[in-house]
């Protein structure tokens, strides 16, 4: 009897530099150390039935990341949380676990948007009104074209339709932006791309000194509930 669980975890501190692939390995090993009986795929080359909902760029912290896992037997969600947290390295922490019903779609296929928080140091004095002006001007644009390097080729891409929400607040030398951006297999807006746009529009921010956090993940646009 296979049971499916959804795990919410945080990946913060130095562990934000762990790559997506390495993070999967990290969880696979932590599950084994915690003696949680993970299910394996059938066939010649069995692999653990576990998948992280959506990759997180190296260097970006995740505060409410999601992971799906199938176990060979049923376990209490609290027990999974407890056991895993005993076996996870510094920086990675399980926040919550719940049992899920059989779904048609995997989490990975459902993710479409995510909340981001971007904290930047300002390089000169900055008023709240300036931030609001620049943000609202940016959102008024009907298209925002950015250049992306993929496999050595530079491609242009319009990210405007992928920005669903953006606001900024200045407080003691730090400006914090909250944003809801397209994320997942259906299209991605990279938070750094927003920062570059804001800087180009005149905001005095140091893009190399920013901390980026991802929050809740969302599926279908019609719902405001997160995928948790």
């Amino acid at each position, binding site marked *: 009897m296979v049971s499916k669980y959804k795990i919410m975890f945080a990946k913060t501190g130095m*562990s934000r530099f*762990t790559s997506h692939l390495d993070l999967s390995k990290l969880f696979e*090993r932590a599950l084994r*150390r915690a003696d949680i009986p993970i299910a394996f795929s059938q066939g010649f080359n069995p692999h653990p039935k576990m998948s992280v909902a959506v990759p997180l760029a190296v260097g970006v912290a995740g505060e409410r990341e999601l992971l799906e896992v199938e176990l060979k037997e049923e376990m209490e969600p609290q027990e999974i949380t407890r056991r895993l947290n005993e076996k996870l390295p510094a920086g990675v922490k399980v926040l919550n676990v719940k049992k899920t019903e059989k779904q048609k779609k995997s989490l990975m296929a459902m993710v479409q948007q995510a909340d981001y928080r971007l904290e930047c140091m300002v390089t000169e004095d900055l008023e709240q009104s300036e931030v609001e002006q620049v943000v609202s001007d940016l959102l008024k644009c009907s298209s925002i074209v950015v250049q992306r390097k993929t496999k050595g080729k530079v491609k242009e891409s319009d990210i405007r339709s992928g920005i669903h929400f953006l606001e900024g607040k200045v407080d003691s030398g730090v400006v914090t932006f909250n944003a809801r951006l397209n994320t997942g297999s259906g299209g991605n807006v990279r938070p750094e791309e927003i920062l570059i746009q804001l800087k180009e529009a005149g905001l005095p921010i140091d893009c190399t000194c920013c901390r980026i956090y991802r929050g809740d993940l969302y599926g279908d646009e019609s719902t405001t509930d997160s995928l948790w």
Partner: protein
Amino acid sequence: MQQLEKILPQVQKPARYIGGEWNSVKKDWDKAKVRTAFAFPDVYEVGMSYLGLQILYHLVNQREDSLMERVFAPWADMEHLMRQEKIPLYTLESHRSVKEFDILAFTLQYEMTFTNILNMMDMAGMPVRSADRDENMPLVIAGGPCAFNPEPLADFIDLFILGEGEEVLPEMLDVYIEAKEKSIGREELLYQLAQLQGVYVPSFYNVEYFESGRVKAVTPKYSDVPKVVNKRLLKDVDKAPFPTHPIVPSIGAVHDRVMLEVQRGCTRGCRFCQAGVLYRPVREKDPQTLLKQAEDIVANTGYDEISLTSLSTADYSKVRPLITALLDRHAGKGVNVSLPSLRVDAFSVDMAKEVQKVRRSSLTFAPEAGTQRLRDVINKGVTEENLINAVTGAFAAGWHSIKLYFMIGLPTETYEDLDGIASLAQKVVKAGLDQGVSRKRLKVTVSASSFVPKSHTAFQWEPQDTLEELRAKQRYLKDKLKVKFINFNYHDSATSFMEAALAKGDRRLGDVLQRAVGMGCRFDGWDECFQYDKWLQAYEDAGLDPKWYAYQLYDYDETLPWDHIDAGVSKRYLAMEHKRALQEQVTTDCRDGKCPGCGLCPSMEIEPLVLGRDDNGV
């Protein structure tokens, strides 16, 4: 470290530089009486694959009074940013500057990492030459296989540890702590440490040269410093501390699995092999010990693969029952067993069949030479029949890809031996076709590396083939191996040429190393980083010639630059082995009780520990 957070997003694989891995140990800095930084002079993924690091790390960190942290060589992108932001070389555990440690301990696995050692000291803000460092700087020590010809590094390293470190390192720490408590100066500390067996302090020795440039004598400056420094070895490998909580790397390492050391040493006596001499005698571990260790390590790491490591795992007496028992206990949880190296015989293929239920990867064999004559010269006890039996078995069992390792430039090699490589490869292809392997999938990969003569081997007197000869041989083989189903792999021999000059080198090469580092040489073992022209320039500027070193043919009665370092096998025996090699005579394996008289056991008061073949359960 805010600066670090700023540069990490700009480098490749930033997880190399952060630490915090599962089972890494961060101890209280203030409570430790001695703090050691273990430095691996290559990238994280390579260094984390080294079992010796895991052994020493846990050995030292288990002591209440000591701590050990790790540091690896930063890749070029990281080095550039660290220097730009003035971030000194730091350890992964506490992110402290390496300069704050009491001891900086390098491991010497490969000559072509020597430039990284100097560069790492420079990045730490330390003068690279021992003579320029004062008492406030860490004591710089080094061990590992290349410590057996430490002379090219003699100007930079305060002391070398020869042989296995499990006993001598704790002894050193004891001496260090006592000296620190008594505020004993650096010179006196070195003097005390030089009294320990296995410790070589190069500054305590004078080297005299003949006008020809050859070494005349290496003599200690003090009467109670040993004339010849003996290696250390563990009498009881079975009871030796073995890390049951190894650090689990946070990014895919080269060997990212349980490394279960089944034995130490190898009895085969291949005449080119330095490790075979350095780690003598063979000492097998009890299978019960191994089963317990495997169980603990799997539970503590979560790895899904147990690799049975040693110089020649198929020779381990209990290998068959051990594999069966490991599979019995772990296969159900999705944990597999793997064998890193196979002997060239059907027995090995049978074992591979047992452990590898899915024939996904290729099987690798190392006949090393193409003809029986040359295999006898190098004492590689393998026949063509062994190889054909092995590959036939492998093809029959479902493998379709075979890799064959050879060396070119071995002493006495002729073009007939190269023809032998080509013909062996073709026989392997034929065996594949005969076994009905699909013509679309059949693949035989031939890799040929260039022979580098090493100290303390039967070939230590031998010159390396010239670079032109090696390149001509590679071209010849490439031509001969333009055959369907066969791939031929080789590296340019310039790296092997530089490796040979260092491996056979003396103390004067310190100047060359320092100049090469100054010109930007780093990671010389990586093809994309190796800068041959700069190395040649460094030699020229130092007034030395790499050919003189690499192509040197020594007489038996000459003083070799490493004669004051004793690996336990007598020079007389090595000379005899060299003569037997030239006469194409093989020497028996001491595993079966016939002692060929290498001299190690009586001089080190030890005996080989062989459990005896027995395929019953364990």
